[in-house]
């Protein structure tokens, strides 16, 4: 269950997509548009998300498969939005479902960590004067990914 969409999503509706009474534990990661400063230190009023959709879908599929094969998961759902988003809006949702919580929690973190550095999405900050500023990748995200090296082949 992988979706790239312009549309907002409802958490309970998405939960129902992966819900089953063989699961006892669900871990969710939800990323939203944070009120932030642009690289030129201006207040942002939203973001614009660009995507290479064919590639992003293939990359998300690969990450999802790795999660399902590396942890005891029953399901893994990934939704990522594209286009113009206002402050506070949902950007990305990961849900992992498992019998027991540790598998769900670890796998969910792996998926969002991987998505941050390996999937063809790009953010722009939208400024008050309707200018767009490219958001740059954080080194921290690359470093954090190293922690999964021993767990994932």
């Amino acid at each position, binding site marked *: 269950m992988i979706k790239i969409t312009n549309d907002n999503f409802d958490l309970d509706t998405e939960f129902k997509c992966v819900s089953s009474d063989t699961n006892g534990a669900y871990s969710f990661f939800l990323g939203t548009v944070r009120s932030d400063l642009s690289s030129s230190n201006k207040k942002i009023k939203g973001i614009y998300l*660009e995507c*290479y959709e064919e590639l992003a879908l293939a990359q998300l599929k690969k990450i999802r498969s790795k999660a399902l094969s590396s942890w005891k998961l029953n399901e893994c759902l990934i939704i*990522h939005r594209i286009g113009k988003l206002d402050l506070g809006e949902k950007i*990305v949702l990961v849900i992992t479902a498992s019998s027991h919580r540790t598998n769900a929690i670890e796998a969910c973190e792996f998926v969002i960590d991987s998505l941050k*550095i*390996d999937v*063809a*999405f*790009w953010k722009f900050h939208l400024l008050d004067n309707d200018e*767009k500023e490219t958001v740059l990748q954080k080194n921290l995200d690359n470093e954090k990914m190293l922690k999964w090296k021993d767990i994932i082949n």
Partner: protein
Amino acid sequence: MNITLKYFSWIRVKLKKSHDLIELNQTISFKEFKNYLISKDPVFQEIFDDKSVKYFLNLTEIDDDDQTLNNGDILALLPPVTGG
């Protein structure tokens, strides 16, 4: 033969377009293709000098500059991703 180029993020902004269709008379290596693009527009030099840019040919990352490009290929120029 035709090669489709796809541009994203700051590369798209810099080139002021999201894609290009390049017509060539014969197959060409990725390395030759890069030189060809620089000869047409020097701004490509700056892009190819940026070691953080990745190149995907038909959705697979290029790891060999001598790789041959063929008719109908789609080559994407990708800055470091910032989704999530």
